[in-house]
C-alpha cells in the first residue's frame, strides 16, 4: 500500500501508523446524558466493508495525521487529506 502524504508525497506503508475510523467525533459535553455518545465514540464502529475514512499517522515522515479514504475490500486509496484541515 502506498499513501500520498500531502506534505511528503507518495510513501510506502511502512512509514505510516494506523489508528482507526476517522468518522467518529469526540462529544463536546461531559454531561451524563452524553453517555451513549461517549460509548459510541470510544467503542462502537461501523466497520464498513467498502470505502472507509480512517486516520493514519506519518510517523516516519512529517508526523502529520491524515484522513485516508480507502476501500477496505481492495485496499484502493480513494483520497488523502490532512486531519487538521488543508495544509
Amino acid at each position, binding site marked *: *500500500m*502506498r499513501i500520498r502524504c500531502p506534505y511528503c508525497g*507518495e510513501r*510506502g*506503508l511502512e512509514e505510516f*501508523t494506523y*489508528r482507526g475510523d*476517522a468518522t467518529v467525533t*469526540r*462529544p463536546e459535553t*461531559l454531561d451524563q446524558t*452524553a*453517555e451513549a455518545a*461517549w460509548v459510541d*465514540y*470510544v*467503542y462502537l464502529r461501523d466497520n464498513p466493508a467498502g470505502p472507509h475514512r480512517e*486516520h493514519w*499517522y506519518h*510517523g516516519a515522515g512529517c*508526523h*502529520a*495525521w491524515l484522513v485516508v479514504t480507502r476501500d477496505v475490500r*481492495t*485496499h*484502493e*486509496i480513494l483520497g488523502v487529506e*490532512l*486531519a*487538521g*484541515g488543508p495544509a
Partner: protein
Amino acid sequence: MTIGTPTDQPSRLAFGGLIDRRLPLRFRFDDLELTGYAGDTLASALIANDVKLVGRSFKYHRPRGILTAGSEEPNALVELRAGPRREPNTRATTIELYDGLAADSQNRWPSLRHDLLAVNQLAAPFLGAGFYYKTFMWPAAFWEKVYEPAIRRAAGLGRAATAADPDPYEKAFAFCDVLVIGGGPAGLAAALAAGRAGARVILCDEDFLAGGRLNAERRGVGDKPAYAWAAEAVAELAAMPDVTLMPRTTVYGVYDGGTYAAIERVGDHLPVPAPHTPRQRNWKIVAKRTVLAAGAIERPIVFGGNDRPGVMLAGAVRTYLNRFAAAPGRRAVVFANNDEAAATTADLAAAGVVVAAVVDTRRDVPAATREAAKAAGALLVAEGRIVEAKGGRRGVRSALIRNRDGRDMHLACDLIAVSGGWSPTIQLTSHLGAKPMWDEARAAQLPGALPPGMAVAGAAAGDFGLGSCLAEGHAAGADAAEALGHDRSSGAAPVADDEPAGLAPYWHVKDSAGKAFVDFQNDVSVSDVALAVRDGFRIAEHLKRYTTLGMATDQGKTGNTAGMAVLAEATARPVAEVGMTTFRPPYVPVAIGAFAGHHRGKAFRPTRLAPSHAWAAERGAVFVETGNWLRAQWYPEAGETDWLESVTREVKGTRERVGVCDVSTLGKIDVQGPDAGTFLDRVYANTFSTLPVGKARYGLMLREDGFVLDDGTTARLGEEHYFMTTTTANAVKVMQHLEYCHQVIWPDLDVQMVSVTEQWAQYAIAGPKARAVVAALLDPSQDVSNEAFPYLAAGPVTVCGGVAGRLYRLSFSGELAYEIGVPARYGDALIRAIMTAGAPHGIVPYGTEALGVMRIEKGHPAGNELNGQTTAHDLGFGKLLSKKKDFIGRFMAARPALTDPGRTTLVGVKPVEPGARLRGGAHFVPRDATVSSENDQGYLTSVAFSPELGHWIGLGFLANGPERYGEVIRAADPLRSADVMVEVCAPCFIDPEGARLRV
C-alpha cells in the same frame, strides 16, 4: 549416435547448446563426483551424466527423477551445500552449476538407492487421502508419544541447517515506469517496445539466461535463430540507459499500490557470495505499469507410474536437448494430447535419441506429428495412451501402450516425454484477490480481473504461439509506455510464425495400471482424489486440504489443473464449475533470510545508546535491554560477586551520600505556543495551565477509555513553553497521542510539539550531597539553595563553563535530587564532569536496578504498575483527576467500574519473616484461604530488597487495598513454590512525608 563418451558426461550431446564447453565444472551429488559445464543447471548436468534417480517422494518414498526444467519442479529436490549453508528442498532445475557444487538427496534413509521407508508403498491401500483423520485416536495419549513422532520423522523433506546462516541478505527498493515480468519472447518484446519509447523499464527474469523458451526451441525470429534473437534483444536492452535488466530475479508477489516483490539471487550461482555482496536481494519494485509475460507451465498427462524417473515433460525434454545439449534418455516414447508431440519427436531424433513411439491421444493426429513420427522412424499410436510406465528405481524401462482398440504393446524405453498442454503462469494476477477464469478452448485458467496497471502478454495470457507472444509483448510494452506519456516510437514488432497447438484435452488415463499421480511431490494419486470425493470432499478447497493436492513446495504448478480436471470428472461437473484453489504469494518459495535482510542477530532491532554509554562501558557497567535502549543496570565494583551486592551499594551510596543516573531515555517533548497550557490541561488529567514558570509538576495521562496511559513530569520554562517527560517505554506512543489530540481533536489550539528525547542528555543527581555536586557543576553566580531553587523548581542554567543546560529539582528516589540536562553532544562530557565534581562527596553511579529499588521504596508506579489495565483510582491517584475541565479520558474514567472500591488498588507489602524474599508475579490470597482462583485478590507487581529497611519490599494491587493495611496475606507463588506471608502496608516505605525531598 551423437551422444558423448560414456565415462565423461555420457549423455552430453556432442554439439550445440548454450553451455560453455571450455569451462568444465566439477560437482558432487551424493557419492558421485561428476562434471558439467558453465551454463548448466544441476539438473542438466545430472542428465548429462545419466543420473536419473534424484529424490524420494514425500509419503511413499517413491523414486523420483527430473520432471521439468524450471522452478515448477516437484520431484528433483536436493539439499544444496552443507553445514550452516545447507539449503533443503532446492530444485535441481533452478540451481546454476558452479565449480565445487555439492548436493545431497533427501528424504531417504539410509540412502537414495535403498530407502527403507519405501515400505510405505506396500501399505498404500491403507494410506489413502486423509487416512490419518480416521485413525490414530486410541489411546489418546499415544498421539504425542507414538504416532506423531513417527509421522513427523517420515514427513518433512530435507533437513534445515542447524547453525546460523552465515550469508548476508539485503532489502532494496526500485521504481519504474514499466515492470516487465519474464524475459521470454513476450517479455523481451515488451521491454524493447517500452524501452525504445523512452520509458524507465525494469525487466525481471527468473533464469540466469534471458530468453525463456527462445533458448529451448529450434525456432526462428525474423531471419535469426530464436536464441540469437534473444541475445541481441538483451544486448539492445542492456545498452539503453533507462532499462534495468534483472536476471536471476523472480517476481514473487503483487501487493497494493503497484508494489511488486522480487527476489534476486545475487550469489547463489557462486560457492559463497562475492565479498561485500549479499546472497540474495529482496526487492520492492514500485511500478506504474506492469507487463506480465511469465509464460506458461507445461502439465503432464496422468497415467500409471507417471512419477518414475525418466518421465519428463516434453518441453523440458526439448530444453535439455536444445539449450543444455543433454539427452534425458536414449530411447524415448512421446505421449501428448497436442502438437508438442511433433517438435519433441523431431528434436529427439535430431539429437540422436531413438523415438520408439509417438502416442497421441487425439483421434485425428495432425500431419505435422505424423510426419515427425515418420521421419524419426517412430511408431505412431493415434488415439492411444500409456497405461503404465514400468521400471525400477533407476527409472522407466518400458511403456505399456494401449491403442484405440484396447490392444496393448510393451515398448522398451528409458524416457517418456509427456505433454498435456500448457497452463498460463497467472499466479501473479490473482495475488490481489481476482479469480482466474476457465477457458474451455485452451483448456486452461486465464487471468480474470487484473491488478491495477497490469497487462498480460503471450503465453501467460493463453496465447502460446511464438508469433503471438512477440506481437502481444510488443503491443503491451508500447501501450504501457504510451499510457505514461511516451511517444509511440517502439519500432516494429519482431515476427515469427505461430506454431500449431491442436490441444484436445486429455487429463488422465482412466485404465491406468498402478498408481497414477496428480501431485507428484505430495504423492496424491487419482485414486486419492476419488477417495476424497467419496468422503465428501468435492469442493476444490476441500479436496486440496484433504488430499494435500497442490500444497507441496511447488504449490501445484504442474499438477493442479489436472487435479481439478480429475475432480470435475469424479463429480460429473465441468472443470469451470470446480474452480481453482487460491494462488497466494510467494509465487516461488523465498528464503526467510531474504525477508529479514540485515535485521537479524544484534541488528534485529536498532540499539539506542544513552549519552553516558561509552563512559558506563568503560566502568564495566552491566547493561540491560529496555525496549530498544541499552541501559546500565548496575556498575559492579571489584570484589563484588552478586548483582544484589552492587545494587545495594549503589542505593546506599545514593541515600547516604550522592548518586548519579542517566535518565536521558525518558521521553522528552517540547511543547510551545500560546495555547500550550490549555493543550496540556486537555491531555493531562491534572492541570498545567496554572503551573508557574520555573516550576515542574507530576502529570498523569489517561487514555480516552479512562485507563492510565502514562505519567511523567512537565516543567514550565516560559509562558508559552513547557518541557514534558514521559516514561521510557511510552515515549513514542505519547508523542503520537499528543499529535493526534492536537491535529485531529483540537486543531484550533495554537500549539506545537516536537520530540527532543535524542537532543537532551539528562542525569539525575540524588542524595544528601546532591546540592554540593550540582553547585560545583554550575557556572558561578547561580544559586541552587533550597530557597532559590526549591523542590520542583525548573529553569535554565549554564554548566561547566558556559554550556547552556537546564536544571530541574525532581526526585524519583525520594532524596534531595536534581535532574540536569545538556544538549546531547555534551552528555559524555557531563557525566565525566559530574563524577569529578562528585568525587569529594563519594558520588556513586547507579543503574536501573538501584533506580527501581528506590522508586519501589518510595511507592512510585512504573511499567509494572502502568500496565494499561490500571486506573487512576487503582494507583491511588484518583484525586489528581481534575473536576474543573475536560481532558482525555475524563468522562470514561468516571464510570463506576473504573472507580469501584472493590478493584485492586496499589499497596505495599513486606514479608512477615524479615528474611523472606519476595517475587514479582505472586498472587495475593487471604491468609488462611485456599490458594485458588476464587480467593485470588490481586498480585505483586514489583519487588526489591531495601538496603535501608534490610528486608524485601513489594508493590502490588490488592482488592480493597487501602482498607487492609496491617493485614497479613499470602503472596502465593505456586509457579515457583515460593509462597510468602506478607503484611499489607502503604505503598511508600521511606520518608512518607517527603521531608528529604525538600531540604
